[in-house]
């Protein structure tokens, strides 16, 4: 027997007797003989707990984590500090091991946490309604696009080139099935330059701050969308929203985003959570679970999953989305983190990032062979152009224990040697100075190598 099952030989015999069959095989009699696998699966034999631990530890040792190098990688996920209380709370079995709160009487903890999470997202985005989470950031952009196909006319999405490349690709993946056209609005001076819009535009989608770190004029972009009857959708980085004019203040209809930076670890890309907030008018078109406050038959305050007639288990093919299992535990980490930061703390944290990012931007721009890609205001990420092959520069830096950032070239051929640098609160002045030194040397070495070849 495996260590996770309990049926002894005696149990098995007694249970088969109660069922009235002679063997386990008889229980599978409905499976046609030709479809049975008459051999063991070609997998290695099972291991003891400690052997599995050792194997997983050995695999972990083959990757370089944010503990092993000074990392300035961002581009959608960020190495923020996750406070110990987040781990301690989300590992409690009462949060870790139940499923979706279909039975509200025994799920008040999870439901209330969702309600608190929704409130925090509503506060960050300045929009009145948040759902209880979607999968993650880029697919949330596509999910917002799906709402637009039902909520507005038009057969075209206009999406800024400043939106995360993964988000743009997710939208395209689905827009094809919806027979919607996707048009990209170019960047000019680091920010979105809207083409002239017409009534055939279903939604205008931008990112705040955009992929190059620049703060966009969200109000102007929303106004332009509304001018032609299109929805305004913003993919937002949640932490900078502590300082920036909110999507709600800017007239945005749907604000979505990647929630990883709120108390979730990097995890090589997931699981994290996506947030999805909207105006009152779009509440009944939203995807996913929504917790709502109510009372029980004794008049006691309680929470339930509400507006479920939007959802697949009730509405089936007429549902607003197919989403079922989402990211409840990750969203819980998000609200615990935001409670830990608090209303003043989050402002202090982001002001700190603002200062350190400005310092880093100045330090790097002063390096010979490094120039800024744009001069727009930034919060915790900025883009520079290197006068040297960026991949080779990154490789040189990593050999020195510094990961200088993300090479823009794969997604932006126009910034062939562009480097996107993220500064979280974990990167100190000393780390930034070290980055500047290592980058200076690497760029110089690569320029010399190119010069030598020429």
């Amino acid at each position: 027997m495996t260590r996770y099952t309990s049926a002894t030989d005696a149990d098995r015999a007694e249970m088969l007797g109660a069922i009235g069959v002679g063997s386990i095989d008889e229980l599978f009699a409905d499976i046609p003989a030709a479809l049975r696998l008459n051999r063991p699966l070609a997998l290695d034999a099972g291991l003891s707990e400690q052997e599995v631990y050792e194997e997983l530890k050995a695999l972990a040792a083959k990757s370089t984590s944010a503990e092993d190098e000074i990392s300035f990688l961002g581009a959608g996920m960020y190495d923020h500090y996750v406070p110990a209380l987040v781990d301690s709370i989300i590992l409690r079995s009462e949060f870790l091991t139940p499923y979706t709160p279909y039975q509200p009487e025994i799920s008040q903890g999870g439901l209330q946490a969702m309600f608190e999470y929704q409130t925090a997202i509503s506060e960050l985005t300045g929009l009145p309604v948040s759902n209880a989470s979607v999968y993650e950031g880029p697919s949330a952009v596509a999910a917002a696009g799906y709402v637009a196909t039902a909520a507005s006319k038009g057969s075209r999405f206009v999406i800024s080139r400043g939106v995360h490349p993964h988000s743009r690709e997710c939208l395209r993946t689905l827009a094809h099935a919806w027979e919607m056209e996707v048009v990209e609005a170019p960047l000019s001076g680091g920010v979105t330059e809207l083409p002239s819009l017409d009534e055939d535009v279903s939604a205008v989608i931008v990112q705040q701050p955009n992929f190059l770190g620049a703060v966009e004029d969200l109000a102007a972009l929303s106004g332009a969308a509304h001018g032609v009857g299109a929805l305004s959708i913003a993919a937002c980085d949640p932490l900078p929203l502590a300082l920036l004019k909110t999507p709600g203040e800017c007239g945005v209809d749907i604000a979505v985003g990647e929630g990883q930076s709120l108390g979730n670890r990097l995890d090589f890309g997931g699981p994290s959570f996506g947030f999805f907030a909207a105006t009152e008018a779009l509440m009944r078109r939203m995807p996913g679970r929504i917790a709502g406050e109510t009372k029980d038959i004794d008049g006691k305050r309680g929470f339930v999953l509400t507006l479920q007639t939007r959802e697949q288990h009730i509405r089936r093919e007429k549902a607003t989305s197919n989403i079922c299992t989402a990211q409840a535990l990750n969203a819980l980490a998000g609200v615990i983190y935001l409670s830990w930061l608090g209303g003043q703390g989050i402002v202090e944290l982001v002001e700190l990032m603002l200062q350190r990012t400005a310092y880093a931007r100045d330090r790097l721009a002063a390096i010979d062979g490094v120039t800024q890609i744009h001069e727009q205001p930034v919060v915790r990420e900025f883009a520079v152009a290197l006068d040297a092959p960026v991949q080779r520069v990154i490789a040189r830096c990593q050999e020195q224990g510094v990961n200088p950032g993300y090479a823009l070239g794969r997604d932006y051929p126009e910034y062939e040697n562009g480097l996107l640098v993220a500064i979280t609160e974990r990167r100190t002045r000393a780390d930034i100075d070290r980055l500047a030194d290592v980058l200076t040397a690497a760029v110089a070495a690569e320029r010399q190598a190119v010069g030598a070849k020429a």
Partner: protein
Amino acid sequence: MIAQADDTLTIYERSKAGRRAFVAPDTDVPERAPDELLAPELRRAEPPRLPEVAEPEIVRHYNRLSKRNFDLDTGFYPLGSCTMKHNPKLHERVAGLPGHARVHPLQDPRYAQGALELMWRLQGALGEIAGLPHVSLQPSAGSQGELAGVLLTRALHEDRGEHRTKVLTPDTAHGTNPATVTMAGYEVVKVVSDSGGNVDLDDLRAKADEDVACLMLTNPSTLGLFETGIEEIERIVHGVGATLYYDGANLNAIMGISRPGDMGFDIVHFNLHKSFTQPHGGGGPGAGPVAVSDRIEPYLPRPQVVRRESTTNGNEPFYDLDYDRPKSIGRLRGFQGNYGVFVRSYAYIRSLGAAGLREASETAVLNANYLLAKLREAGVAQYLPAAYDRLCMHEFVLSGEPMRRELKIKTLDMAKRLLDHGVHPPTVYFPLIVEEALMVEPTETETKETLDHFAEIVTGILREAQEDPEIAREAPYTTPVRRLDEAGAARHPVVRQPMNGN
């Protein structure tokens, strides 16, 4: 003593201006005027009204909330179709190792060999279990795996120059199936079930035509029954050029016993949070990888984890992300998928191995049939008969219709009364084709004693209802709250904490 009323205070209601848990590190760089870095017109009018509480109160608050949740580590959770099997504690430990938990998703593959190797190995194991050679781990959950499957089907047909408009789903399908079909731009056509609980083959033949792109099938079905006509279904579906899609929600019944690929399925999705024991987290995270046949492979999402054999002797193979996939449907999400989930599921597969996975499925089916047998005994079967008089697979469906008629308690009342006995109720009112349905999935990790105890509880509730049905109709009594006004919540939605000014 904490007053009862305090139990439902939100974290916002515990907030007091000036309290804090977070202390920012020093600003160690030369400080600039904040407005110079971010002009006032770019700034929000007011800071977000997040709670202001110190660490002890945050911890107490969420501990208090946790105690108002029922969970799998506390008791029996036979929620049909959700496979609430034990979540091994080892998995949290290994997933938390910094070499897994703190690797950036855009780390250069040269510095992420461990993560990519783990993904590559998991792809191989899932492919072997499914009997289909190519796996993408990218989809975030079962529903996104379904979406991937239907989009892959679309890509296949478009590549052949075919335009198809319909997708078939049985009347027993999970709601995610028809919702996915609509999201993927197809029309849903429902196929009915026959009197034995199988797909009605005549209805399928009548509806399967050249406009049909795909049949989405769960096997065993949501009735907990193996589709005995699967070979004929495969012939009908492939006969009209459609794909056969396997919804992996019920894979826990057949691991190592029968493989969807061998049944003729083209595309399979897995729910790693079901069969492969990622903790359900109160509604996620999960992961929904897909496995596909050779002809579907070119369309898999980008990027794909690949192993490149070293050209020089003695060197290790290199694990890489392959973006060069011109026929790919594209991305479904950011980065490479829910890696933290992959770590846990990989650890599970390594723990159990081939024999253990088979034993898990055998025991899941044994436990379900045993519990069904116990519930067929006198005192239960006349009120809660099995919807179909067959052996079941890993779950079974009862009908509460006689109970409602004769004892005047509904399935909902039975479910609510179960709460007072410290067990999670089965899935209720699903599948839709069974009146007053109760769908029970005990899983392999429960003991015979737990199953016996559950049968006794159900028997007791029925006996109690014979005396006084009001008891069940008013249940629960012992839970943190009693029945909640869900209609009122939907009519006047309060979906966030009201605060001064809104």
